[in-house]
């Protein structure tokens, strides 16, 4: 099958996740946000965290479960069992300390 470049780009875009990192986690990773193509084997938050831990270094130490990280999908706090899909905005951060 032969797709024009514009169609490939549009297909890619629909498979993208927007990732956000805040506070201590943002500083540890040195990144505040990125766009990521939804990895084929990832369907929930826990899976995405395992995927990110696979990057090694600070990613591994932050996402390997040894550090308490909260997640939000589309700006709603979720448990790590929450499913994710293309186009979601997914944020990771330490326990909140406002007020």
């Amino acid at each position: 099958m032969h797709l024009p470049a514009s169609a490939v780009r549009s297909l890619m875009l629909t498979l993208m996740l927007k990732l956000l990192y805040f506070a201590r986690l943002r500083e540890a990773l040195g990144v505040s946000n990125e766009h990521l193509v939804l990895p084929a084997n990832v369907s929930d938050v826990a899976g995405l965290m395992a995927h990110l831990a696979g990057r090694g270094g600070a990613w591994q130490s932050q996402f390997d479960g040894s550090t308490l990280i909260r997640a939000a999908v589309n700006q709603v706090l979720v448990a790590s069992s929450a499913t994710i899909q293309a186009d979601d905005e997914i944020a990771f951060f330490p326990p909140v300390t406002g007020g």
Partner: protein
Amino acid sequence: MVKVQHEDFDAGAEIASMRLSRPDIGAVAVFLGQVRDINDGSSVVKLTLEHYPGMTEKALEDIVAQAVKRWHIFDALVIHRVGTLQPMDQVVMVAVVGAHRAAAFDACEFIMDYLKTQAPFWKKELTGSGERWVEARESDNLAKARWDQ
């Protein structure tokens, strides 16, 4: 109503505006949080509040909606500042208006307990010995858990 802002706010004017919004209000419960000059034994020079724009407002509006649904109150206001603050600066205000005091007190405390554990704000302190992120307190989780029973 929910406001997330860098600027300071006039607590007296906000309270007056809430309490004068309807003539059947009998009770106004208010919480005001300010930056302490000391935390966990270290002197605090300044405090920087980071937040998650968009989610912050959504989370606070959801907390207010839960309070209005759960108690017989008329309205609730939350103002939370972000950015860099100094000791004695106002950080947060919650004002709840209703007919009677018990519901207003409970709803105000509920909103604060949920805000502390559910709204995406993070504090970083500059102390005499450098910068540090404020740690979440288990006491805040316990305070929130009271309302889930």
